[in-house]
């Protein structure tokens, strides 16, 4: 659930009418945001991206990703996910109910930086941070 009686914008609310979020961590009650990926995209977002992205606070099983996130069925269910830290995200708009789906989405209008990706394992000394995609089961 979203915290603080957050209003979720109805389906079809245009991006320019969505509120810009200034208290994302508080809204999410410190949960992470999820950016699901196609298998073919694994490895291509680990340095971040500057392009607009849809993300969601809700974890789904692969079979749920298509209906809940309004994804075209031909692309297949999502089996990988990147976890993003809300305190490292900027230019965030939302939340909004997903068109044709049942979930909630935020829009990262300027994408996300590399250091917004959550660690998924403790870093070992002298190695790069442990930031990579998780497989979804």
């Amino acid at each position, binding site marked *: *659930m979203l915290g603080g009686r957050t209003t*979720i914008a*109805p*389906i*079809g609310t*245009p*991006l*320019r009418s969505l509120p810009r979020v200034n208290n994302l961590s508080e809204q999410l009650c410190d949960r992470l945001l999820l*950016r*699901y*990926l*196609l*298998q*073919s*995209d694994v490895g*291509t*977002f680990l*340095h*971040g*991206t500057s*392009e*607009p*992205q*849809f993300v*969601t606070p809700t974890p789904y099983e692969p079979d749920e*990703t298509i209906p809940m*996130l*309004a*994804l*075209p069925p*031909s*692309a297949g269910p*999502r089996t990988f996910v990147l976890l993003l830290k809300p305190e490292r995200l900027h230019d965030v*708009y939302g939340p909004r*109910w997903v*068109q*044709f*789906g*049942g979930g909630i989405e935020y*829009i990262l*209008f300027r*994408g996300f930086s590399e250091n917004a990706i959550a660690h998924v394992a403790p870093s070992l000394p002298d190695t790069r941070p442990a930031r990579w995609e998780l497989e979804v089961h």
Partner: protein
Amino acid sequence: MGARSPLMLKRLTQKLSPQLEELGFEALDELDGVIGANRHGVWDWTWIRRRRIAPSCYASLYGWSNGGNLLTLEAWARLERDEQRSLVRHFDDVAFELDQEVQSELIRAMLEAARRSAYLAEAIVPSFFEEEPEDQLTGRWRDVEIAASVADAVHRLERTPYQAVYSAARELFTEFPDQNWRNQDVLVALLERGFPTDRADVNAALSELASTEEIERVSRGVYRSRNR
């Protein structure tokens, strides 16, 4: 496509947008001249045509990489919460550069998606019509006719603010805790009670009530009160 969308596709959507605007559509996710965003691996460029009482129409272009230097593209016509949808065209193995012929085909497909979505909006017929016993048919058509006639009457009225729709929908479930409600049933009930609204706000209210666990989803599009 990875972290960056193909430049030619972005340019194509810039070319497409004015043509869709002539059909009454506007880009749903547009800010500072940038249209669309990456929807969990699929580039999503969606245009919406809002209708005051009737469901909004959507025309969407989706694109994703096949893992190499080729794309899959799809043009979809949709209506509100995907209750009716139509895949207009599917393109396999399209080069990132998008030659002229592909661009023309894509534009044609998206204009068709826009036109078809409006047709979907006009073609709402209860799918259970043929299976229902005759004594229930009259009731179902009555619902559709009431919604249409009330919609005609209220289209000039001030639209009910979303919070009031939410409260009124919540009241329905409190008054009738043992009844199963479809989205359409809630819309008709609210219209009859003098709340001019539309399916989009009703759908949003039902989803919000479900998310706060005041109602539960019995099956797709059917809800009932949790306080029985």
